[in-house]
């Protein structure tokens, strides 16, 4: 079961994960990561921009790579775009597998690639001013772990 989506409105991860888990009967383990807009340092809002012709297709390619690399039964990958408020979920990745390490590593793999290589541009608003977020060095280091 494969469910890859961009969402423009706030979502409740539990409403995605319940059906996803149910759609993969016989699974041994399911690992889920949910990223939220951190409420810190006076961040008032976050905005994620996509470029329609490549962002969702890029997520599908990433899912293909995850299925090729790990022994998965299902993969859910949902990413918000547009403006978000602190506490709102940005991203939800869930992997169902027979064995736990495939599920956990697939989530780790997808998250590193969503952070460091997927076609999103992020800016945040502090004290009324929007500022673009540059990728952190860590994001590249994390990504380098998966080099074939």
């Amino acid at each position: 079961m494969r469910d890859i989506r961009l969402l423009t409105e706030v979502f409740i991860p539990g409403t995605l994960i319940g059906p996803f888990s149910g759609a993969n009967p016989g699974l041994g383990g399911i690992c889920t990561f949910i990223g939220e807009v951190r409420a810190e340092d006076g961040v008032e809002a976050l905005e994620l921009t996509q470029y329609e012709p490549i962002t969702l297709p890029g997520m599908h390619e990433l899912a293909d790579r995850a299925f090729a690399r790990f022994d998965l039964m299902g993969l859910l990958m949902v990413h918000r775009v547009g403006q978000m408020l602190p506490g709102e979920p940005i991203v939800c990745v869930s992997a169902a597998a027979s064995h736990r390490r495939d599920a956990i590593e697939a989530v780790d793999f997808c998250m590193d690639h969503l952070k460091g290589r997927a076609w999103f541009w992020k800016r945040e608003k502090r004290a009324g001013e929007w500022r673009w977020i540059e990728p952190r060095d860590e994001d590249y280091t994390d990504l380098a772990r998966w080099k074939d």
Partner: protein
Amino acid sequence: MTIRILFLGPLADLAGQLECEVEGPLDWDGLLAFAGPAVAEQLQLERVNVACAGKVLADKTALSAVDGDEIALLPPVSGG
């Protein structure tokens, strides 16, 4: 029909616009000249990509856009 150029993320701030149109055809040198010095400098960085007609170019210097194409200038990503 013209070529549409989109400035994504911080490149829009640098360009002072989200998009513009230009008469085709357009190659890499034409793009650099058209984009102006600030954006052109960014475009020459390895981590800035260019998409044409919905595909990210493996070699952006091989750009060869014709009227009707959409070119997107893609700065370093920061998702998740």
